[in-house]
């Protein structure tokens, strides 16, 4: 599947297109195959997202998981600072990233 990501213009936070809106959580991402450019153009023009681009992802336990390690680190946060990631209490999250 293809999922769309970008950054929130004001805060810079990594966001994912859910089909209706932008979420901080990659698990909410919708498959945008075929319409990625159109959505990206429209959302960027409306300044609801900054510098959007689509990436490859697979379904993992029913939820989107980016195919490349860079996008997984981007989705979660720095592996060397688990306290600053989106899931600071999930101790086995490293296996999801690596």
């Amino acid at each position, binding site marked *: 599947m293809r999922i769309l990501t970008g950054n929130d213009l*004001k805060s810079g936070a990594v966001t994912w297109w859910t089909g209706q809106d932008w979420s901080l959580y990659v698990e909410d991402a919708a498959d945008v195959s075929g319409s990625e450019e159109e959505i990206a153009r429209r959302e960027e023009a409306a300044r609801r997202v*900054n510098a959007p681009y689509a990436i490859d992802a697979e379904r993992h336990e029913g939820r989107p998981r980016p*195919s490349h390690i860079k996008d997984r680190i981007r989705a979660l946060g720095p592996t*060397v600072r688990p306290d600053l990631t989106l899931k600071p209490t999930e101790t086995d999250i490293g296996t999801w990233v690596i």
Partner: protein
Amino acid sequence: MYLYDQYDQQMVDARVEEFRDQARRRLDGKLTEDQFKPLRLMNGLYLQLHAYMLRVAIPYGTLNSRQMHALADIADKYDRGYGHFTTRQNIQYNWIKLEEAAELLADLAKVEMHAIQTSGNCIRNISSDHFAGAAADELVDPRPYAELLRQWSSFHPEFSYLPRKFKIAVIASDTDRAAMRLHDIGIQIVEQDGELGAAFYVGGGMGRTPMIAPCIKAFVPLDRLVTYSEAILRVYNRYGRRDNKYKARIKILVHEMGKDDFTQAVDDEFARMLDEGIEPPFAELERIRTFFEDPLFETDASEDIDRSDPDFALWVDRNTVAHKASGYVSAVISLKPVGGIPGDATSEQMRLMADLAKDYSFDELRVMHTQNIVLPHVRKADLHALWTALDEAGLGSPNLDTIEDIIACPGLDYCSLANARSIPVAQKISERFAANGKTEALGKLKLKISGCINACGHHHAGHIGILGVDKKGVENYQLLLGGSEAEDVSLAKITGPGFDEAGIVNAVETAADVYLREREKGERFLDTYRRIGMAPFKEALYG
């Protein structure tokens, strides 16, 4: 250290207002991201892997305790309570909001700091010797010349859209502690027939095509320093390649033109510029020098150090450096705790370092390109009190210039350009050597890790270098040997096929063991490598 006058303050304040306006226009949709990007970059604001990142300039790595306190306050107010000291003697914050960035810059301006030209295709923050003004071996303090060039290069109307970024380093000692010859321009202040002048090295750099800068002019008089720099920049701005960003640095131009033709082009431009009134009045250099006069060192400071505590004695041996004034040393605060993140400091640690600088080092700190902090002027009599305070805060690691003192770029944990993570490799290597007890035996060994070929972690210049690459979506690490950023500058060579994360840690230990087996008396790792060559290392690694 240098203090702003009304002019400097006006310029920085104007820049804050300019950026405030630009950010507003971006948020209002009057600027596209393409148009805004070079503007935010020239104010140090990147869009990084997780968020906006701000790089704050620390000119020639020098700051006072008030400024370090401000950096700590910014970490708490605008970020997540920490900052990252970089190989450009700067500090980066990883989680900045665009809507707050102008306010942050205004806070910086209150303590005579800024983020001007810390990114973008312009002349970047100028780096220098972190022991400037303290080193026993320097000719003069190089920082007045760096400050003069800072003013010249700030908001330069002709050189703000160069083919690529442009980095300048200034030193004034035969010992090179600033990787001078790996800069676009490296300047060494030298003496000739009793006169001071500048030797210009042009076209060095790391990145994907590492090159060592050749000397294009052995002596430029100090009253031509700015004009000669301007001539170099104009030749570069006009003729540097713009068709390929990977060939756009001045090193490629110097290489393709050849050193002699390049030098001739600069000399021709210089001759034309001589009557253009570019050079500042010499009185300006003399004014700047007054800010860098020696603090009032005690003339009878004691040379004695009570070494009865072995942990303290080890720290003194490893982390203090000879000072030009008797009874003083420069003390290095390691930001490389075993298993830690190289160069990161919490706001609490920053405040402690600031307070210790005030108490023990004439209110001055330096950022090293090796991502540590220097207190440049410490009385030997104060060392024990200083060490005790540092040790309690986890800042007392006795590992300067050892294999645990690793340079590492932020890598894939933070950087959108990276191909592999750097920090976890650094953590595992420092843990390995702290556990196996070989750090002491290995002595001076510079280990440098980059997470991609842009080489922010200086892997080309490591006695041992590590380069992270992406091998079909999996992190992979190449090992390099034989680099140096110092006066014995050389570029490291790749040993062979890369390793996975566990494999690279083992490979570093294997290379270290070859050295321990082969070394002759007095040799550093680098010396042994240069004597015996790559073959024995390859044999041990891949044989």
